[in-house]
């Protein structure tokens, strides 16, 4: 499969790495030589030092056989024009990163030849919102347009699930607890099975419908506190979007930024939030604004170090829940030790939504599960597949992998050992990358000999 990515920035890099790792033919186009040089070392794909909007360049790369064209530079207009140009020359699926609301009409991109428009800021803002509203949540994602939710939470020592195996939990709680698709313990990710015992400080990834996941959170984090006051550091598009979301949910919001111009822009977009021109690491004025009494504190500024610092400050003053925007993996691992509750990376949110569009063999889509390092893949079961008609526990599913959700036209089902797969089902598989080839083999198996 031939994939062309325009823009080797953070999003383009992540995407190129994810896709080239799964044996796609990836071509990364970047205009800036320095940026290109920086990524060339660590990526296994073809590079073009050229402008992605140039028709001549696209002609040379060849659009006729291009299966996925992703324009993810940080300029909306470049991305849109590149997609339109690629469309004229026959590229199949076009994806553009578009941040400006003005290019959307009632939530959809206003250009018909663009198949998917992604907005990292919105995706991340949504994720943060989901985390804030759930005490104990560390990460939140939506798959398949929100039909399947994944929420990661830390197991508290006095919680219901601590010290119990998944099999016991399943027997005691039955349908009222969501499936645990992955567990992160001491920095190691594992795909749990029935005998896995949940321990305090484990991070569990609950998978299922929104209702089910929400209910399950009570079993790991008993105290669910209401969210009434939130302070957001960073009056950038993501902060503004998050503030707008929270205000709509009747939360009192204060937005903090050190830059007066950004504050002005934010205040002109936020009717019911208080915008403050304060340096986010300047303690005294933030204390005056009650940083310690916040139910939620979110830092989504450009500078990751400042984000972490201001979260620490908030934590120290007594803010209940702290969420931090970080893209660097090294930092992500540090956060729990620092007492910061959750980390959010817009890059991950973005590359996850683009990867949905990639098809290879029976795989409909593939993405990384947040910071866990586990893979999420969507498979389609055609009629006559050997797995059809057999209960899951007798299926002999590969190790270190689990079917997290079965998607049917009538709804999303959380599978148990008794679940029988049907032809036409879509399944969401959570797996360690080491077991991906085995899963691949499992699903690409031909029709069962009758």
């Amino acid at each position, binding site marked *: 499969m031939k994939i062309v990515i325009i823009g080797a920035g953070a999003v383009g890099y992540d995407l190129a790495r994810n896709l080239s790792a799964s044996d796609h033919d990836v071509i990364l186009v970047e205009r800036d030589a320095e940026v290109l040089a920086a990524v060339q070392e660590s990526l296994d794909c073809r590079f073009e030092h050229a402008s992605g909007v140039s028709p001549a360049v696209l002609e040379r790369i060849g659009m006729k056989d291009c299966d996925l064209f992703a324009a993810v530079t940080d300029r909306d207009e470049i991305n849109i024009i590149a997609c339109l140009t690629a469309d004229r020359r026959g590229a199949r699926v076009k994806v553009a990163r578009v941040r400006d609301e003005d290019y959307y009409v009632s939530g959809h991109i206003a250009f018909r030849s663009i198949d998917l428009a992604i907005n990292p800021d919105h995706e991340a803002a949504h994720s943060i919102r989901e985390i804030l509203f759930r005490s104990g949540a560390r990460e939140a994602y939506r798959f398949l347009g929100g039909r399947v939710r994944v929420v990661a939470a830390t197991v508290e020592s006095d919680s219901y699930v601590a010290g119990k195996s998944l099999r016991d939990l399943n027997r005691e709680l039955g349908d009222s607890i969501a499936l645990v698709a992955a567990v992160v313990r001491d920095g190691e990710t594992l795909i749990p099975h029935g005998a896995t015992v949940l321990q305090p400080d484990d991070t569990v990834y609950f998978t299922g419908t929104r209702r089910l996941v929400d209910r399950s959170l009570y079993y790991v984090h008993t105290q669910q506190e209401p969210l009434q006051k939130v302070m957001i550091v960073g009056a950038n598009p993501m902060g503004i979007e998050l503030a707008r979301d929270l205000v709509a949910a009747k939360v009192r919001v204060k937005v903090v930024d050190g830059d*007066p111009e950004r*504050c*002005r822009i*934010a*205040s*002109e*977009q936020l*009717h019911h939030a*208080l*915008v*403050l*021109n*304060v340096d986010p690491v300047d303690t005294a*004025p933030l204390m005056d*604004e009650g940083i310690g009494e916040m139910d939620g504190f979110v830092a989504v500024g450009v500078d990751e170090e400042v984000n972490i610092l201001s979260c620490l400050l908030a934590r120290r003053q007594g803010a209940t829940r702290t969420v931090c925007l970080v893209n660097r993996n090294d930092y992500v691992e540090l956060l729990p030790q620092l007492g910061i509750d959750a980390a959010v990376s817009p890059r991950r949110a973005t590359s996850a939504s683009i990867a949905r569009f990639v098809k290879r063999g029976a795989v409909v889509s593939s993405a990384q599960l947040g910071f866990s390092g586990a893979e999420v893949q969507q498979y389609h079961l055609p009629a006559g597949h050997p797995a059809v008609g057999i209960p899951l526990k007798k299926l002999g599913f590969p190790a270190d992998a689990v079917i997290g959700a079965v998607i049917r036209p009538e709804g999303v089902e959380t599978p148990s050992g008794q679940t029988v797969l049907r032809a036409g089902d879509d399944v969401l598989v959570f797996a360690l990358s080491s077991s991906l080839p085995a899963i691949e083999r499992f699903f690409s198996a031909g029709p069962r000999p009758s």
Partner: protein
Amino acid sequence: MNLRSVIRVLGFLLGGTAASLLLPAAVSAIYGDGDAWSFLVSAAIGGAVGAALHFAGARASNIGAREGFAVVALGWFAVGLLGGLPLCLSGQIPGYTDAVFEAVSGFTTTGATILTDIESRSHGVLFWRALTHWLGGMGIVVLALAILPLLGVGGMQLFRAEVPGPVAERLTPRIRQTAKLLWGVYVLLTAAETAALMIAGLSFFDAVCHSFATLATGGYSTRNASVGAYANPAVEWIIIVFSLGAGLNFALHYLALHGRFRAYVRDDEFRFFLYLIAVATAVLAVALLAIEYYPDLHATIRHAAFQVVTIITTTGFSTADYLLWPPVAHVILLLLMVVGGCTGSTSGGIKVVRLLVLLKVGKSELRKLLHPRAVTTLWFNDRAVSPQLAMNVLGFVLLYGLVFVFGVVALTLGGRDLLTATGATAATLGNVGPGLGDVGPAYNYGFLLAWEKWLLIVFMLVGRLEIFTVLVLFFPEAWRRS
């Protein structure tokens, strides 16, 4: 300033007014009151002067802001001068000062009269008084929604986006388009009120005259005791409803006619306007009930609502002499005179939206004390208001206050008592009509000295044209060639 192009437009306006004088001439002829000739002579004079100016002037390809100010201010005055002519010629109003006062009061939809005995005037004159209101109202709707926003007067740009109709780049087609739409609404409402009043029992002549005066928020009645003369609750309620409508933004009416009724509810100004009316009515009703001024509750509420609505919309009809009401009523009505109705309506005063912006600025200043680092933006109708615009509004209110103070001081210097001076200034600057004290609803402006009348004529024009439009002409720069 391109004076010749201004002169040309003035000539056009005079010509139009002269043509409209044919209507009262026809009314006079029909009723045979013997005043038709005075209207015809005035029409001839107006037509001749208009034509002369029109041809003396030059066609300008582009009328700029300076010319716009001059046309609006001088135009209204010139039309008033012509409008007073037939009143004076016919002998129905002796003295040209009084006649001009009456005509300007009509065209500015003020409704302040110098007549003691209205009922003994001829039909032609009574009709002309009502018609000046109606024509003035037409001018104001377009002025407020199409012209002043383009000139950037007193924060009127706030409503630029609210104005229906396609947005053209050039000024003229846009004004023409907008004017047609809004006049459609205006004519429709006038016809509706005329029909309603006739059903309630008024004669066709009275119904038309009162509808003209209501929709323009003028207030000239054909009766000495104004609307109170009919002692007909139905008529009073009809006038309450229609003057309320005339006090609202006509752009909202236009949207409603096109099925977008929610435009009313979503408008901040509309909601605040209704809120003011409800509170004022309640306070007046309680004050009246306390002294048992009216025999029953319905009469109390009706009279309170009528006075509140007629004053806040700056119509100025009356069903009662509110000077006999408790003092709190005087204060409230005086405040309502200053506030006035909504922008884009035919009413005068500061306008509800400016009061709203003022309150919001005050609130945000207080908030800044609690949050010294807060970066605040003013919101109106879910849109951010630029600080520039807010300053514009503050400037307007300040200037309004200064002119007001000047008026009170000038009139008291001449020996009038404080209540009369305040009432007369508020009533003319706000284009209300009846004031307080010696110019209260039961009296008139006839006894004032000539200089006082001319001062009030200027006030009516200044208030009508949103202050800036007139005052800007006192700057020498306005008259220099650009």
